[in-house]
């Protein structure tokens, strides 16, 4: 245990602190935005894939047997190594169960990478809400809570 020069002992401490601050900041940010449906993907920044009225057309092309909900469709992208996908599945299936005309469709992102790129899905779970015509109304990355889903359903918002 010989005395060490101070300038030679700080790098590890600095990296440790940086890592902890970065992780805490990222974690808090994620906790805030996770599951939040973008206020209005339609009238704000026109992200190309997002505004495509044929979101359902893309989905349907990739998942032929799928059926569009009469009022709305919850399209959930999941992957194998994704714990929050389970939670999301339970929430969305329950919402679809309790509300007439709302369908829930879970898509394995790994098996449908072209669709994932086309719809610009970056994380799992990502939930797209499609209106009755199959147009994407809004989307959320991360597990949404039930209230967040209900608040974002287009036919429940009006009136």
């Amino acid at each position, binding site marked *: 245990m010989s005395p060490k020069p101070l300038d*030679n*002992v700080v790098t590890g401490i600095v990296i440790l602190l940086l*890592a902890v601050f970065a*992780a805490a900041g990222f974690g808090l940010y994620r*906790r805030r935005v996770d599951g939040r449906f973008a206020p209005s993907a339609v009238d704000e920044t026109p992200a190309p894939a997002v505004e495509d009225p044929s979101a359902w057309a893309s989905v349907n*092309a990739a998942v032929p047997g799928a059926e569009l909900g009469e009022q709305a469709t919850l399209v959930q992208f999941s992957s194998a*190594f994704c714990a929050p996908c389970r939670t999301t599945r339970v929430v969305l299936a329950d919402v679809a169960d309790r509300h007439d005309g709302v369908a829930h469709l879970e898509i394995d992102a790994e098996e449908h990478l072209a669709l994932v790129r086309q719809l610009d899905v970056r994380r799992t779970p990502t939930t797209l809400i499609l209106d009755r015509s199959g147009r994407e109304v809004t989307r959320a990355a991360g597990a949404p809570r039930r209230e967040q889903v209900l608040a974002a359903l287009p036919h429940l918002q009006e009136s």
Partner: protein
Amino acid sequence: MSTPGIDPRGPRFTAAVTFVIFAVALLLSDARPGVAAVLTGVQAVFFAIGAGLGVQKTPTGVLFRSVVRPRLTPPDHLEDPAPPRFAQAVGLVFAVVATIGFATGAVLLGQVFAGFAIVAAFLNAVFAFCLGCEMYLLGLRLSPKSPTSGG
């Protein structure tokens, strides 16, 4: 889906221990890179067990089940062990690089990779957030091959 499932607090406990091991390694790395290499090397072995045999088989997994879990309330839900197991494999890569860095005198390399591992372990322990799991889809998206998608 039909897999039995594990207490989600197990992987978080494991991540907390991982965090402490990497943190101590980083704190010692400048003065005692050899000790840091031993610590990250031990952690690499833990990761290898977790990735190869499952998260329940790691020393921390066993410790959690035998000592920690009996003192906690029963879990409100169980989770699929596949995501944390995948995360262990990602962690293994970082631990191995860090160990090589510390052991060969490329201390800064070891410190940077230990830093990345700290970020992931912290997120997992504090926020139950699996960084490696998220990177998985991004990695797939970036990979050039674009397999069966048309249906």
